[in-house]
């Protein structure tokens, strides 16, 4: 066997190699000390170990010692990471080692920070190499895994999840109970560290199964905790040849700036912060927003128009898209979607009864209502 046949991946990263298990963040370090904890170097990942450069040699971590990876850090810790390294992408790896006296095992943490693309690549490879073998005894079904993935994406609303589960409330209840029993998520549908590790090891498999296109509209339906009470800032620019216009537009009026009948192409770019539309007459419209769900809803509406798919074929989905933009007037919804106003009202009544919207046709913003399935 030649040594050169080994599977080797290399990542240029900044890292803290041996921090005490970080439960709530880096708060136990003095801020001035955090700077000194970071090392820089090329991390080597083989199919059996992680090699962290240390002076003229390496610190070696067997992959079998990794307990969890992909755990999230609190915002305050992420801010500390950013302040001391300049990076916003992090990967947390928790591992078990013998204590110095060898009497018991302790959990230690490696914190990696770096370019988003590097962190993502390492995460994907680790997911592939670590796999889900350690969770085999949990006997999770495909539905359980799907639900855990949706929860990890912040999609927690019972009414939306019931839709994904084909209207089968019992199936959803069973899966949610399985996840809680396996300690992968809490009663309020938040993922535990174990749940985060499971999802990290799962990699992008589920997203592939559901279809990436399916996640964006679902997120649009469920804005989650992060966007509550925050007004989105939206900028629209229009350019064609030497002509150019730009201005700030309220979310509920954004639809008026999209020439639906003449859309030639539509793309979400810059990590989902910009929507780029080109028309059959060569004009380009760029819409930037601080709220990803706003852009996702617009994307969904525009793409359906581009592909000439009648909105009436998926009325609930597109009504929800407009509600996510703040368009609640049934006459306007009827005009945009080419659905009779009576049918719009019928759909909205149904959504009210399912708890997706309230009587003012506002999307229910409170996450974690899955708990009712107990």
């Amino acid at each position, binding site marked *: *066997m*030649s*040594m*050169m046949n*080994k599977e*080797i991946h290399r990542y240029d990263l900044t890292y803290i190699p041996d921090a005490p298990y970080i439960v709530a963040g880096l708060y136990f370090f003095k801020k001035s000390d955090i700077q000194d904890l970071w090392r820089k170097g090329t991390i*080597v990942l*083989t199919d*059996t*170990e992680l*090699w962290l450069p240390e002076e*003229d*040699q*390496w610190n*070696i*971590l*067997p992959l*079998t*010692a990794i307990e969890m990876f992909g755990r999230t850090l609190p915002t305050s810790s992420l801010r500390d990471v950013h302040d001391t390294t300049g990076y916003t992408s992090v990967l947390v790896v928790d591992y*078990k*080692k*013998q204590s110095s006296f*060898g009497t018991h095992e302790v959990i230690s943490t490696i914190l990696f920070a770096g370019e988003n693309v590097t962190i993502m690549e390492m995460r994907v490879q680790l997911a592939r190499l670590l796999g889900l073998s350690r969770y085999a005894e949990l006997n999770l079904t495909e539905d359980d895994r799907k639900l855990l993935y949706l929860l990890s994406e912040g999609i927690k609303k019972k009414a939306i999840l019931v839709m994904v589960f084909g209207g089968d409330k019992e199936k959803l209840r069973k899966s949610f109970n399985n996840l809680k029993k396996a300690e992968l998520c809490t009663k309020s549908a938040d993922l535990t560290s174990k749940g985060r590790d499971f999802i990290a090891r799962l990699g992008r498999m589920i997203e592939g199964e559901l279809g990436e296109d399916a996640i964006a509209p679902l997120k649009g339906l469920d804005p989650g905790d992060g966007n509550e009470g925050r007004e989105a800032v939206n900028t629209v620019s229009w350019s064609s040849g030497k002509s150019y216009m730009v201005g700030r537009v309220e979310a509920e009026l954004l639809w008026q700036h999209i020439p639906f009948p003449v859309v030639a192409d539509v793309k979400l770019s810059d990590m989902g912060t910009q929507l780029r539309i080109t028309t059959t007459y060569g004009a380009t419209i760029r819409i930037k927003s601080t709220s990803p769900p706003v852009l996702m809803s617009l994307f969904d509406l525009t793409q359906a128009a581009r592909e000439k798919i009648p909105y009436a074929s998926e009325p609930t989905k597109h009504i929800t898209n407009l509600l996510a933009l703040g368009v609640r007037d049934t006459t306007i919804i009827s005009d945009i979607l080419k659905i009779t106003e009576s049918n719009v009202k019928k759909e909205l009544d149904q959504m009210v009864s399912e708890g997706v919207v309230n009587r003012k046709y506002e999307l229910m913003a409170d996450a974690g209502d899955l708990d009712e399935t107990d």
Partner: protein
Amino acid sequence: MRVILMRLIDSLEGLNRVFETDIIESSIVIVEGVEGTAKSGFVYNLLSNYLESADKYGVYITLEQRKESHLANMHSMGIPISKRLVISDFSEYRQKFEHKTQDIIGMIETNIMLFKERAGDKFGYFALDSLGALYSLLDLQETPVRKQMYRFFDALRQEQLTSFIILEETGIATPGQVLGSEPYIADGIIELGMRRHGGRFTRDLRVRKMRAAKHSMEPWIFEITPSGVVIREEATYD
């Protein structure tokens, strides 16, 4: 101008009296002996002196002794420390993760590969301290030890590393010795011993075999001096 290439056997004072021709490159040499025969000092001194003079690099893997402890030991024997012989300390790894180790030979291979990437063609020397410690880390359930040792020695040869493998004789047979594979798969064996000579105990070395090299078969007395290992004279035991 004629360039005189440094030979391994010129790296320790007196060793070129034991050997007539040099140890050839890519050889795998087992250095064996009981406790206290200065096996680690002999190998480290030989390699560090040679690497310094030959503009080469090597790695010395210690599975049992901490790097700091090893260096302190070398210092106490008057052996100069060379940055060209990088000490790779696996003892800490053993302490932390021994129960989780799956493929220690694979790890040593990766370690060698990473050093080779750093030092390039100048990296050509390897030492393992010790074979007994390596045996204790092998998974004997999975693959027979003999097969694993063949794989290991074969990898060292493929990478064209001149290798010195330290083996401590304990009087208790190790799994490898039970199978008796080492003498056959190694190119050379140097025995280090301790015997009574002229009314006092002395250390000696004997070259039991060294492929493609002319050497003495007799034991030679060596000493640890303030400037390291020095081979003094052929021993005349009764």
